[in-house]
């Protein structure tokens, strides 16, 4: 009996060692296509997931969609934006922004857009919905796509606040209303983002 148990115990131990060895070997396989076997991922299709957030343009929904509409906005799709589902809300928020800030802009010698014409000015963006548009035949840089280093807020402010018939879209970015770059330098190579600091 003792011998039999001992044999069983040794067999189990050997099997366990083999398993661990295989796992370790699997871990060393980083970068190969078969590494998925070692991590356990959900297999539920995207249909089984409930939407939490969506985003394309920087600060667009944050600045121009009302708090009460933010969750409904996240649940909607760019095709809904393009169909005008949030146009009234965007216009109301644009108007509020201009009522508060136009005197300051004028004081700085800038020409604000009238809210209705701001909407026209934003038309190229609103018509596609809340998406980043990338024309690969043109150089990269917001609003043609968005690079990590682009001073997007100053550009968005110009888009929603200034008369772009008078001013260039880079007017505010050129004087750096906001910081012109991140405090942590980007990396030259992929993944480009700076390590945590």
């Amino acid at each position, binding site marked *: 009996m003792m011998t039999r148990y001992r044999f069983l115990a040794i067999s189990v131990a050997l099997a366990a060692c083999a398993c661990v060895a295989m796992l370790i070997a699997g871990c060393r396989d980083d970068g190969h296509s078969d590494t998925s076997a070692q991590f356990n991922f959900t297999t539920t299709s*995207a249909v089984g997931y409930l939407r939490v*957030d969506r985003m394309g343009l920087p600060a667009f929904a944050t600045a121009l969609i009302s*708090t009460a509409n933010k969750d409904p906005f996240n649940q909607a799709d760019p*095709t809904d934006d393009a169909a005008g589902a949030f146009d009234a809300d965007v216009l109301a928020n644009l108007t509020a922004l201009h009522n508060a800030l136009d005197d300051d802009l004028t004081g700085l010698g800038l020409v604000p857009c009238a809210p209705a014409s701001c909407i026209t000015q934003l038309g190229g963006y609103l018509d596609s919905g809340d998406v980043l548009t990338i*024309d690969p035949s043109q150089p990269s840089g917001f609003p043609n796509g968005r690079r990590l280093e682009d001073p997007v807020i100053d550009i968005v402010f110009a888009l929603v606040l200034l008369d772009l018939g008078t001013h260039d879209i880079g007017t505010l970015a050129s004087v750096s209303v906001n910081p012109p770059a991140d405090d942590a330098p980007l990396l030259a190579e*992929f993944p480009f983002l700076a390590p945590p600091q």
Partner: protein
Amino acid sequence: MNRFKVHLVLAGIAAVAGAAALLLFLTDGYAADHRESPATNADAAADLADVYCWHESGKLYAVLTVAGLITQHLDTAPVFDTKIAYTVNIDNTGDSVPDVIVDVRFGKNIFGQMGVRVVGLPGATGTVSGPVEQVIASGPTRVFAGVRDDPFFFDLAGFRTTLATGTLSFDNTRNGFAGFQVVAIALEMDLLAAQGGDAGAILRVWGETGRLSN
């Protein structure tokens, strides 16, 4: 009260009303998209902070950052969540309906280590997966998921003061995101594959998160 004074008072009321309206509309919104809605505030791991996407030398790059304005100076644990699907939608036909859906998820191995899996990456052959915090190469594509410095920069305090007062109050030496971390998902794709093989195609790209419903 003379006319001029009445005008001033009215202007003052209008300015206050404008500022109040702004406050009402905008105080829950933080920044690019960080913590912008009740549902996203309640679910940091699924809260998109920013979406970046650009083309360069035949590649298309996309970066999603999530869980912004929470983890600072590594004092708290980063948020990798195995029950969230992170999606990069790419429309290459001009109708704002996705033609390419890149599906990114996190998962653990038997040792409790976190990995990332990407399905549908343009240019990749099949699924790309591997550990987080490492660059994973597959053919012409690369994937990285890990904790990084939040690359977003913006004078958040100045923005809030501007909203509260109706007076432009920005300071370009203040970055409200300095020292904050994000969970970043970076993807390097083949541009032509993302364009569906049409070198003239213009792309529309957006990010999306969903939580497993059970």
